[in-house]
């Protein structure tokens, strides 16, 4: 994985000291909250429902065991012994004191981490495929390209005050595991006539106005990828709306201009930019690539797994994914125990995952946007030992992509923007389905819950989505069906009137029962919904 050079470290260290001074001045009353707020947000420090919240960037979701240990130590030393892994592959701490914030950033800097650009109207953490570098189906590892974009976008003076926040995802396979087309810019590294290039999708997003990004260019040569991204941002920075924050995201600009007109404006800007090309892009890309070379996979690693333990066999079937190297798999550690809080991990669990990564996965971990953790390179021969250790720590839930593997935002339990609680609904649904025994029969069913229209829980992209709303001071939940964040991307539609907390759990089970009744051979929930449409579900839900 990428290691800081002297410039990276110097920049991060300098930012820590800058923030230390800003926080000191705030505590001494030399800065008002209005003056301090944009400064703390630039360092990922929010003021949330119960306390300050710190969001730490995990670039493209990749971290090593030393970094995971540091995250655990921060949870113990400065927070309440746990952290929350987010839908943008980051981690959040919910109980941070302002007087500790600079020390936390200093601790992060020691392990090459920071919280820069995890808030504000700038380019946020670049996200990517959590199986990058391991997936059997990728044309190349997308992370060097994500890293190149991270370097370009960090402290970019022109893009520090965009009309609104800006999110970029990079993938390198036809199978989209990063919700790429629901980002402001989605980049797919593709191969054409033996040459790699970048396919650009621009103007996607969730939030109050969900949109799927259209493709605006099929192929950008790799040495021009950053320049083309810069052109995309320039057009947005110049023409995006600043008069209304709800219409300020690039998706609104692309929608209002039309994809073709926007693309033409980008091409014009791109042409201008290429007159003064960036220096040594390919050279830097080659340097970055060296950090992402394959680990030394064991040749002829055994490809058999002893499946005599049925619990282990179930976990293998559900939570491991094909790897490009024979004898290896990627193993998913579920942070979704039945009745648990999606994405939360205790400091002890973080340390265990870190140690297991060191023992079994070449010292690498990944954070998934679905709020689970991946050990990307695990020998099949080590799987039983790995699973045993995970299971003993409550991390062995065999539920990847099932109805129990629920994405849920922090909701009204933690978030000052939320209108309704998400976590209790997720807990009740996972308990309901675990008790009913239907999880296995339902197969892949992606359920995503947001506590408000901002859609941090990706409800628009759920096969089943739930949106919490405030109805005259009472929590109410809308049910949506038919979304997908994958390569078959689609936006979910609302079924009808909302439900109370108990009612929404019943409603999800009712929708699941319609699927079980109507499905044809091999169909997932989403396939059946797409074939039969909304009406059978509506009839079952509303009579």
């Amino acid at each position, binding site marked *: 994985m990428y290691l800081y050079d002297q410039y990276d470290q110097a920049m991060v260290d300098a930012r820590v000291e800058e923030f230390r001074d800003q926080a000191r001045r705030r505590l001494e009353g030399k800065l008002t909250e209005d003056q301090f707020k944009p400064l703390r947000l630039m360092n990922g420090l929010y003021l949330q429902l119960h306390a300050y919240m710190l969001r730490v960037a995990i670039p493209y979701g990749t971290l090593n065991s030393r970094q995971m240990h540091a995250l655990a130590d921060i949870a113990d030393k400065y927070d309440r012994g746990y952290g929350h892994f987010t839908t943008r592959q980051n981690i959040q701490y919910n109980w941070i004191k302002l007087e500790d914030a600079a020390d936390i950033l200093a601790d992060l800097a020691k392990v090459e981490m920071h919280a820069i650009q995890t808030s504000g109207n700038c380019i946020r953490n670049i996200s990517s495929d959590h199986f990058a570098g391991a997936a059997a189906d990728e044309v190349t590892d997308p992370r060097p390209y994500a890293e190149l974009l991270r370097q370009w976008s960090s402290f970019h003076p022109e893009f520090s005050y965009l009309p609104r926040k800006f999110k970029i995802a990079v993938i390198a396979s036809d199978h989209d595991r990063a919700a790429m087309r629901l980002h402001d810019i989605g980049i797919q590294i593709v191969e054409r006539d033996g040459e790699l290039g970048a396919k650009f999708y621009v103007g996607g997003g969730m939030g109050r106005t969900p949109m799927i990004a259209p493709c605006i260019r099929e192929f950008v040569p790799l040495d021009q990828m950053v320049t083309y991204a810069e052109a995309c941002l320039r057009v947005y920075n110049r023409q995006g709306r600043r008069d209304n924050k709800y219409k300020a995201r690039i998706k609104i600009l692309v929608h209002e201009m039309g994809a073709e007109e926007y693309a033409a404006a980008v091409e014009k800007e791109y042409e201008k930019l290429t007159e003064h090309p960036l220096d040594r892009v390919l050279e830097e890309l080659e340097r970055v690539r060296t950090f992402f070379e394959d680990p030394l996979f064991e040749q002829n690693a055994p490809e058999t797994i002893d499946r005599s333990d049925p619990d282990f066999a179930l976990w293998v079937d559900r939570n491991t994914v094909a790897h490009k190297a024979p004898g290896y798999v990627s193993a998913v550690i579920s942070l979704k125990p039945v009745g648990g*809080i999606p994405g939360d991990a205790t400091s002890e669990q973080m340390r265990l995952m870190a140690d297991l990564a060191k023992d079994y996965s070449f010292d690498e971990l990944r954070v998934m946007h679905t709020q689970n953790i991946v050990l990307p390179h695990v020998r099949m021969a080590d799987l039983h030992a790995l699973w045993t250790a995970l299971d003993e720590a409550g991390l062995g839930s065999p539920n990847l992509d099932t109805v129990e593997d629920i994405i849920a935002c922090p909701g*009204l339990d933690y978030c000052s923007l939320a209108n309704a609680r998400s976590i209790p609904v997720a807990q009740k649904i996972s308990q309901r389905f675990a008790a009913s025994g239907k999880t296995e029969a339902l197969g892949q069913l992606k359920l995503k819950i947001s506590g408000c229209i901002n859609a941090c829980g990706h409800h628009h992209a759920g096969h089943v989505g739930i949106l919490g709303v405030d109805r005259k001071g009472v929590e109410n939940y809308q049910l949506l069906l038919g979304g997908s964040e994958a390569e078959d991307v689609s936006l979910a539609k609302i079924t009808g009137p909302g439900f109370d907390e108990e009612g929404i759990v019943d409603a999800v089970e009712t929708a699941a029962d319609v699927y079980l009744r109507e499905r044809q051979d091999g169909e997932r929930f989403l396939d059946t919904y797409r074939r039969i449409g909304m009406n059978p579900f509506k009839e079952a839900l509303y009579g």
Partner: protein
Amino acid sequence: MRILTGNDLKTGFVTWWTGSDWSLHVEDAVDVTGKEDEIASREEAARRVNVPYAIDAELHEGSPRPAHIKDRVRALGPTVRQDLTLKPADPDIGNWVI
């Protein structure tokens, strides 16, 4: 009634105006109807509170109970982690929030 709330500047913890100071416990809050802005400005200027604002509340068994669920969650802590709330041992506290 109207009660005044904000966050402690140093810790960020939710606090409530008691008439003379700030408390972590909403049951200590007093009615500030008509004096919200004056107290909020004075206390914020003195850095005894961060971003104070007034909310509606009603008396419930003799103590203020915020009118909106969001403020009740603020007053107690996350409903999904009772161990982290201000009333970790009260089995009925969930009913107060919901």
